């Protein structure tokens, strides 16, 4: 049935051309009678020059209406500025049935169905891209065609029953127009178990779904959250943008359970679903912060090492550390120095207060070291203001390769040229005894 509809729509063009109507009330009445859509140019020509230009140079031109091929009724609404009460009341009367809040920016073109249902609003940048007569007529013809298609589908659906009706409703919901009123309820009647997935798709609340999942996580209802996510993932034909949200929400749950590897993979999947869309980009950014960075899989967005040729993380899966003193240290935290989330206590290593306090990192073999990222402890960061890094191949001869200018939350260190080394000494050059305590050391280069 669906394939015939465009033909039906086109057939109707042979007998009906656009009609101009003086005002909105008259236009909508005519639309109802003739079962044709209405296109309304809503503008503020008295206070907005471009609106006036658009009206005078395109909308009002006879050749504009002549170029349209679809049977559509054209009218306009002028919204004035600094209306007094009386003028406002008069204006309201002339546009009875029109909702000014449906226009968020001026000018706009609104297309209404024969039944007065608002099908779409073109405004802002979207309308600006149509500010030539050819572009606008093409788009309006396309929308009028869709409106006709919708009218036919509605009429057929009214007469149909059972699976045929369901199929027609699905075609209706699939049209790139505003949702039909009460369509979810109609699907519910015909497809109570939502086998088609339309109820789920039409009622999906986008970012509010993620917000809802966050609420469940905060209420410690992780299983319930995952169940809802899986249910959404099982819905057929979800759009890429929605899939990004659903996968991202899953990543959010996994990250909150400290399953960082799974979370990071899920966030990346979310991004792959919608790599250029806002949902995919957001999920990757969020995932980077809560999973990618703690896993040392990716640098945080504010790292100056981003975009630099620094090789791989060569410390994460190989390095060990030996401290100059250990009475204040908790070796169980050392794992956080090179891998996984940062230590909850705020530091992974902690020496005594001493002159030349340091830790020696063993990369297990001679490597080409190109860069380091060192994360200071969360509090008492000033202790590390003299942080210095030396390299060695044998722990006998040490070469200083970098020294801090001041205490920082994190240091991104890009070496001028790669240094061959197995050992890195990360220590203090403080004139008086001082503690060395750091959260993380990531070393980049090649093995």
């Amino acid at each position, binding site marked *: 049935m669906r394939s015939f509809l465009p033909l039906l729509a086109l057939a109707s063009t042979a007998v009906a051309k656009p009609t101009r109507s003086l005002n909105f009330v008259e236009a909508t009445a005519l639309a109802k009678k003739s079962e044709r859509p209405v296109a309304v140019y809503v503008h503020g020509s008295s*206070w*907005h020059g471009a609106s006036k230009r658009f009206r005078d140079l395109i909308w009002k031109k006879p050749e504009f209406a002549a170029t349209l091929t679809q049977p559509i009724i054209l009218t306009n609404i002028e919204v*004035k500025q600094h209306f007094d009460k009386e003028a406002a009341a008069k204006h309201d009367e002339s546009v009875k049935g029109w909702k000014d809040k449906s226009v968020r920016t001026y000018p706009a073109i609104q297309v209404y169905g024969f039944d007065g249902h608002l099908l779409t609003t073109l405004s802002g940048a979207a309308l600006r891209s149509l500010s030539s007569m050819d572009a606008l007529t093409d788009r309006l013809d396309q929308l009028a065609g869709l409106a006709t298609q919708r009218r036919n589908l509605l009429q057929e659906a009214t007469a149909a029953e059972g699976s045929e009706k369901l199929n027609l409703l699905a075609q209706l919901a699939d049209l790139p127009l505003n949702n039909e009123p009460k369509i979810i309820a109609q699907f519910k009647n015909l497809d109570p178990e939502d086998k088609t997935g339309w109820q789920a798709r039409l009622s999906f609340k986008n970012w509010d779904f*993620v917000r809802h999942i966050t609420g469940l996580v905060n209420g410690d209802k992780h299983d319930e959250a995952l169940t809802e996510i899986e249910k959404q993932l099982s819905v057929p034909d979800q759009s890429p943008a929605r899939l990004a949200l659903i996968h991202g929400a899953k990543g959010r749950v996994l990250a909150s359970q400290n399953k960082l590897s799974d979370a990071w993979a899920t966030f990346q999947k979310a991004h792959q679903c919608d790599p250029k869309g*806002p949902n995919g980009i957001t999920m990757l950014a*969020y995932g980077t912060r809560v999973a990618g960075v703690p896993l040392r899989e990716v640098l945080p967005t504010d790292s100056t090492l981003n975009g630099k040729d620094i090789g791989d993380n060569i410390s994460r899966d190989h390095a060990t550390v030996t401290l100059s003193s250990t009475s204040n240290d908790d070796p169980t935290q050392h794992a956080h120095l090179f891998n996984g989330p940062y230590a909850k206590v705020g530091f992974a290593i902690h020496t005594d207060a001493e002159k030349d306090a340091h830790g020696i990192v063993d990369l297990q073999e001679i490597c080409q070291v190109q860069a380091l990222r060192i994360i200071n402890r969360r509090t008492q960061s000033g202790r590390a203001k003299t942080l210095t890094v030396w390299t060695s191949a044998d722990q006998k001869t040490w070469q200083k390769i970098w020294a801090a200018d001041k205490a920082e939350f994190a240091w991104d260190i890009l070496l001028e040229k790669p240094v061959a080394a197995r050992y890195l000494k990360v220590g203090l050059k403080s004139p008086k005894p001082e503690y060395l305590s750091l959260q993380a050391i990531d070393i980049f280069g090649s093995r």
Partner: protein
Amino acid sequence: MNSPRLVAFALFFSTCFTAFAVPSAQDLLQEETTKLLKEAELDPTGDFGTAFLTSPDWQHEFHDSGPVEAPAEALGILSALWSKDSSISSDPIKRGMATACALESPRRKWTVDDVFPRYEFFRDKWDQGLLNTMYADLSIFERRYLARGVQHTRFNELASMHYHNDEVCLPSEKYTGACWYARWILHNPFGDSIHGPQYYAPFLNSWGNYAEIVRNVGGVCGSLSNFGAAAALANGIPAVTMGEPGHCAYAVMTKPGHWQPAYSLSWKRDLHTSFHGGSWGWHILVTTAQQDIKATRTSGDIRRLARHYAGKNNFSKALEVLATARQTHPADWQNWILSAEILEKAKKGLSAWQEFHQDIIKHLAPLGGEVAFHLLHKKAYPHLLPKNNLKDSPQQTHKIFASAHRALTDWGLGRWDFQRTLKDQLKLFGKDTPAQDRFMAELFSIHAEQNVFTADILALQLDRTKDDEKRFHAFISDISKSLAKNTDANGDQYKNVITTLARSVLPKAAANGDKATFQAIGKLTAGIFDKSDVTPEKFPGILLSSGGTFGIQKPGNRWDNPSRHWGVIEEHGGDFHTDATPATATIQLGNYGDLTGVVIVTRTGQFTRIVNAVLQTSINGKEWTDVHTFKKHGRTHRVDLRGKDLSAGYVRVIHEGQPSLHFHKFHVYGDKKN
């Protein structure tokens, strides 16, 4: 010759023609400009210097469009803008915008490279017809708001401005609702609070500009108000964001010369783009002074003449000229400041300062007590009040203060912090508490007739005497003499005073949306009326109506006692009785919020009168939406609004069919979203 402006002109020209050594206004303008060009290291005979010097209009625009901070630097920026677009000098609209950009650059610490794209934005959008037509007629002063942008500077980035210009293009008066294009929401979808750094962080690369990010992600009052103001600015409509206690709001110039507060919860506003002073009153003073461009130029001419005299040490002549400026252009703050500067420089004696004091009382105080008292305290009082041991001469201090207070008849330019002024004055009595109390009682007497400032005097004295009930009641006894003449000397004076005060103040405060006064006086009534004993089940959230104002049509009609209005919207309970069709009872909520429900307790009887009344909500108190029609009669009504997604700052019940509504409680519940 009746017009003050004509007086000023006459004085100016008579001075010019009678004192032969005095240059004309034109010469003085050129002199000031030439001096500034040299200071800015610009060649007066170069291309820019010539263009600038041959245009008196342009020079006036630069010198007389509000205070000029770092003038040489600003002129350097203007010259650099002109170098990039020399059509500036031949097109008044471009010239005006470029001048405004230059004047604002030192305040923003902008270089020409920072400000030129902003100038270009307005220039090009205007050429393309993409700005509101109001833009054409803006003064240079008004353009300074466009040049400066909003407080949250990411909205001032070009990409955001283009977005706002495309996507939030509205009739000027609609920008007061533009803040609601973004959703009010405290936590982002991941649960991060807006008060931390992570709220917007994951979204920063998701859309092309900051305005679009805020629109899609949401925010709270700060983001929303900046969004609304920035939208107006990007469409050529002056707007400004402003801080309020625990809140951020904004204001829009919806019509020429008319500034409308938006999303505002309090009169205590601190504007983020301000000149001289940051309060609303200062804003209205400065914008009023700048309304009449010809007058600002004349005022500037007079100041230049005064400076010319002062430069020649002819201080008396300078002050004579400025005295005329103060009389003819009292809203121009620069005339007052220059007067004080010259008085100080000339080391003038008491009589000159008394003349200055009289001028403040006569010409500035009627405009606005806030600015008048600011000037009196900063400049005049140090020269007029007894120098030593103020506490030893309280009578003289009383007299000087009282003369200024007598000049106040209303709030003038806008509601201001009268209590702060009182506190400043009380300090000048040292530790002489009885003298302070006498002063407060005397002030009450001075202000009793107008009844504008009495609520503040009462509230402050209540606070000062909160630990000394005897002192407060003594005060009440004193002021009762200034109030209702029929106070029963044998009855409860305190109760009578409060009732009398509340009857008069509460309806006015409600009509003006003055929550502070409504609440200050209303709370006093809690102690003299019994609590309502009917307490229906509440809705979730807080009592949003609490802390707000409440008013009806025809308050104080023969069945209504306005002194009982406060309790209606509070837990305490109260009552009211309308007597006009349509019967209307309106609450300005204490907090904007998402509504969960409304509870009404009517009086005991005539229950059917509420039938067919409609419950309405509004964001701004002007455009109302029907949310419920009362179909049943009864004493208690609970209207569940949960799930209706209703945000409101105002709630009312209106009955089109009959004049009488009478409730004991009208409570609105919800989650606040200030």
